[in-house]
């Protein structure tokens, strides 16, 4: 299960800068944007869409493979990418969280580009496993990519799915964990020290696993390209919640909050390409 062989890291950094800017723009219309959780997984999601998922020819983009945002609150990362691909419209994003729009704070099945409804944590990996397994037994060449938060690894259902994906040997499934260490209340490394090391736990459950800097798109892509296959693959991406805006980084309030006008101006002024 390999994606697109060549991947331009510099182009990814430019795209992600644009996405961060776009997300901050949208933040000025809604009180709760979940921007920080989107910022932490942006490079991961961009790499999946631009470096791994295979497209059919045509516009707007249509994918052969499937993306699920199991950490549904990070969906702004997905929305801005779907907008850039022409799958969602500029107006869709302008109407975010309004009665006349179709996008909310969590992905909703039926919206263009959204393959399953998430929002309640711990659901995505199970559905992704079912999709990948169905593709395999139907003889279809679908690959399923799913992004989880580290908080979702606290859900028992995620570990039920971990077990079954490994038992069923669904090697057309790749999971990415956004290891930003921040739950909405506090740092996981402080409240759940027994959670670590994560990599060993995933391997013990029968998955092929690797860990990289989750803001380094090139490293993310390389890690997937290097996978051996024959079983499900999980990539841990070490990330920083709110990455890209200094005052948002690892500060819990930005899990939900949108910046006010002053904060917005300050954030826009300091945005730059995230290099690692």
């Amino acid at each position, binding site marked *: 299960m390999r994606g697109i062989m060549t991947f331009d890291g510099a182009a990814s950094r430019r795209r992600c800068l644009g996405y961060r800017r776009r997300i901050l723009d949208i933040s000025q219309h809604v009180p709760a944007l979940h921007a920080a959780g989107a910022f932490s997984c942006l490079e991961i999601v961009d790499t999946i869409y631009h470096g791994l998922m295979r497209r059919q020819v045509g516009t707007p983009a249509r994918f052969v493979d499937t993306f699920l945002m199991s950490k549904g609150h990070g969906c702004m990362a997905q929305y801005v990418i779907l907008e850039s691909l022409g799958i969602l419209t500029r107006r869709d994003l302008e109407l975010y969280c309004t009665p006349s729009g179709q996008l909310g704070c969590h992905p909703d099945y039926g919206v263009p580009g959204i393959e399953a409804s998430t929002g309640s944590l711990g*659901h995505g*990996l*199970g*559905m992704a*496993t079912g999709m990948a397994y169905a593709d395999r037994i139907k003889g279809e060449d679908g690959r399923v990519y799913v992004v989880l938060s580290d908080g979702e690894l606290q859900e028992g259902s995620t570990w039920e799915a971990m077990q079954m994906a490994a038992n069923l040997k669904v090697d057309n499934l790749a999971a990415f964990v956004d290891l930003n260490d921040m739950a909405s209340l506090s740092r996981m490394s402080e409240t759940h020290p027994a959670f670590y090391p994560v990599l060993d736990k995933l391997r013990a459950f029968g998955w092929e696993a690797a860990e990289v800097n989750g803001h380094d798109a090139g490293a993310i892509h390389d890690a997937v390209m290097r996978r051996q296959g024959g079983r499900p693959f999980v990539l841990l991406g070490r990330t920083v919640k709110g990455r890209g805006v200094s005052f948002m980084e690892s500060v819990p309030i930005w899990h939900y909050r949108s910046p006010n006008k002053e904060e917005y101006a300050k954030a826009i002024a300091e945005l730059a390409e995230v290099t690692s």
Partner: protein
Amino acid sequence: MRNTFADTIYEAGKNDKRVAIVVADISPAGSMQKFRDEFPERFINTGVAEQIMIGLCAGMALRGMRPFAYTIATFTFYRPFEFVRDDLCYQNLPVTVVGIGGGVAYSTLGGTHHAQEDVVLASALPNMTVLAPCDPAECREATLYCVTQEHGPVYLRLGKAGEPDLTSRAVDPFAFGKLRYLRRGQDVCILGYGPIMKLAADLAAKFEARGQSVSLVSAHTLKPLDTDGIMVALRRHAHVIVIEEAAPYALGLRVKALAWEARARCRLDVFSLQDAFIHTYGSPGELLAAHGLDLASIARKVGVE
């Protein structure tokens, strides 16, 4: 019913490659073993893990398959409730959640294995269909409906084993969403669903022994409920009786509400499980009797003892 379900799903699986069974560590009954042997890729055992049972079914349904989640009712439905709600109902996916032993069929296993409130909870879920056939033949019809239907998720509440035939001489065929008259009369109408229909039939015989003419009705489709059919029954009979092996907020309460809407003038008696857990062990009949659901008690209350 368990064996009939297994035989039916095996037949359906032979003809329809979309059909898959996802069980959570329950011993395969009847032809389930044949299904497992012949279609191993479409038979998955998740082990003692019910959330992934529903999650897998959702993912497979999102890929166009027709999965059946199958284990004891308390574990197919209560344990992964939020997965049934979000993955199946919210996304409106054609997955059948099969609850074996709905009610108190697992009568020696204690309250953890009793599905008393399943009908009420399942009926409260948007997009959910609720079916509860009364005998093996009706179980077959309901199962075949689940395979071919295009509506969305179904909670299929089944008995366990040994249910007698009640429908082979029914005046109505099985029709989804419609009350099914097993026989038609003028004076009394007894509505029920699931294996407790046998008790309803015994009660009907008592009325008939007194020369009264009885309609005996299987309300197998609890959602969407045949509200028009119920209002007709309320208007046409002088005495309507509901008997159900479920918490007291299910069919009985619905019929009472419809009686108001229909301006019904009939006598209406409702017999349900009580709003209480059962700490009794014995046969299903003995447990039902502990909540007043036995022929003698009901006959006395409706005046045909």
